[in-house]
């Protein structure tokens, strides 16, 4: 095939990738979008296999089949509640694959038309080391994020003295190594860049935890894109550059949306430490305040006599796998002529859009699931807010208490509804470590227990 035909086929594949993202503007068009993405990838792979230099079809086919089988197996088996971990794990693969491709280009530059081993052009070397650097950071950062989300590593942010200073020194050292690498093209320096970047990836994610995880996952998504870009520049391949840029900006925008959802700058999230050591910052001590506690029958009674209910799910619902019994509860209420809607806070869950997927899994129609701006004005005209597994995103202190760490964060105005039902395991604070004054209000009833059991019991009482 001539270079021009290859370039055109790669262009088609890039356009299909753009359409794949474009399809996600609406659930109806999204499935077609996914197919565009698959076709784009097929075109890219087949085109590359047609290259004159590509001859070892057997080995490549075996690698694709082996990887494909594992990927298919994992993707079919994964629980929707575990999506954030899965995405983090996948990001780490993109990162490490980028390192391997850069390594291959370093040892055999002739295959990529960038020179001979030991005499690669300087610009190619710079691009190669940047791709390696970002890829390695993505790899180790995602591995740690995976561990935190999976629970194998403590999800709490780990902060120590001179942390950021240390990170900056390491970063400068990597730049220094890249400069050396460009001049001597030594394999030792190349692998030093890889190892130290891996170390930096761990150090960058260590101080971030808890409610900041959606930002981390989005950020790593972005990094995996920039890594692909770096490799694209090394190989002078426009398809890789375009795709990497699309993914990179996608992750960056998601990070921005997530940090805005918490009223925090991306910088402060990256610096980390949020919600780790703070215990009860609230100026007034709530220990002697009275809470109203109820059981499933009380909740069923309140819900049955309402005419409008807004359900506010949070990460606690995901942990308890309560989405199915929650939907069942919603269905019974709807059959009784009660209006039921779901309100989603941008940072609910552990990755962007996590709650929407879980509710969709439980067969909640997407028209009933509304975003913060769409539904917030409905709370004053709603009788019952049913908060299940969410806490910080409903805390009115975000509006009133300037001392609070969550001050300024947009919240769902559940306090404005007539009655608030809180399904919680205990009185423990949310990830921010801030007490929620809503618990002590007259119109709030606390329903202590496992979210799933509570929903099941409410369903029983409703019947």
């Amino acid at each position, binding site marked *: 095939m001539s270079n021009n035909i290859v370039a055109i086929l790669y262009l088609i594949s890039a356009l299909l990738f753009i359409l794949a*993202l*474009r399809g*996600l*503007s609406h*659930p109806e068009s*999204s*499935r077609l979008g996914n197919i565009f*993405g698959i076709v784009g*990838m097929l075109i890219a*792979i087949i085109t590359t296999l047609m*290259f004159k*230099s*590509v001859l*070892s079809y057997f*080995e490549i086919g075996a*690698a*694709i089949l082996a*990887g494909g089988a*594992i*990927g*298919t197996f994992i993707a*079919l088996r*994964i629980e929707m509640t575990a999506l954030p971990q899965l*995405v983090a794990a996948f*990001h780490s*693969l*993109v990162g*490490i*694959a980028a390192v*391997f*491709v850069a*390594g*291959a*280009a370093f*040892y*055999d530059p002739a*295959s990529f038309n960038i020179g001979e081993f030991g005499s690669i052009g300087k610009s190619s070397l710079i691009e190669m080391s940047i791709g390696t650097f970002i890829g390695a950071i993505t790899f180790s950062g995602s591995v740690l994020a995976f561990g935190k989300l999976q629970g194998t590593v403590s999800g709490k942010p780990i902060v120590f003295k001179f942390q950021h200073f240390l990170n900056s020194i390491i970063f400068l050292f990597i730049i220094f190594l890249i400069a050396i690498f460009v001049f001597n093209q030594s394999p030792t320096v190349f692998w030093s860049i890889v190892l130290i970047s891996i170390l930096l990836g761990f150090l960058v994610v260590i101080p971030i935890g808890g409610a900041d995880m959606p930002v981390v996952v989005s950020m790593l*998504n972005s990094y*995996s*894109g920039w890594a692909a870009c770096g490799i694209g520049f090394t190989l002078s391949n*426009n398809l*890789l*550059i*375009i*795709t990497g*840029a*699309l*993914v*990179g*900006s996608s*992750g960056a*925008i998601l990070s921005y949306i997530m940090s805005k959802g918490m009223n925090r700058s991306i910088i402060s999230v990256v610096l980390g430490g949020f919600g780790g050591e703070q215990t009860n910052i609230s100026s007034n001590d709530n220990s002697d305040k009275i809470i109203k506690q109820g059981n499933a029958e009380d909740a069923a009674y309140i819900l049955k006599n309402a005419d409008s209910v807004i359900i506010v799910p949070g990460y606690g619902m995901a942990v308890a796998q309560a989405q199915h019994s929650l939907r069942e509860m919603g269905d019974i209420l709807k059959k009784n002529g009660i209006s039921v809607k779901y309100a*989603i806070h941008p940072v609910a869950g552990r*990755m*962007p*859009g996590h709650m929407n*997927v879980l509710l*969709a899994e439980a*067969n909640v*129609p997407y028209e009933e699931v509304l975003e913060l701006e769409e539904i917030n004005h409905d709370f004053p005209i709603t009788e019952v807010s049913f908060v299940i597994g969410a806490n910080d995103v409903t805390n009115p202190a975000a509006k009133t208490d300037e001392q609070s760490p969550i001050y300024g964060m947009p919240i769902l105005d559940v306090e404005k509804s007539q009655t608030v039902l809180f399904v919680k395991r205990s009185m423990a604070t949310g990830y921010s470590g801030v007490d929620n004054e809503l618990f002590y209000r007259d119109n709030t009833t606390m329903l202590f227990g496992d979210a799933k059991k509570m929903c099941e019991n409410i369903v029983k009482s409703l019947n």
Partner: protein
Amino acid sequence: MEAHTSEIFVIGLTVFFLACIIGYYVVWSVTPALHSPLMGVTNAISSVIIVGAILAAGPLDNDISKIFGLIGVFLASINIFGGFIVTYRMLSMFKKKSKQNNQD
């Protein structure tokens, strides 16, 4: 030679910035409800680095870069299949109201 490589780099840079702008507008038009599938799909397509891995694994001679290439092909394939399938699973769950009522 030097002029030639810098030319290629500038073309790459042009493509890069234009693609960033396209990405910016396309991603802002994604509905927030589908942000998880967006991550799934971006994950799958970022594995297009398989292109580089295939080129490295292509030649018949068995050297270290071929091994790296094959590992790259293997890892990227996990991601491609996994990413698209998990996205498909997520998207097939987003149903309309009318459909759901028919099922009940």
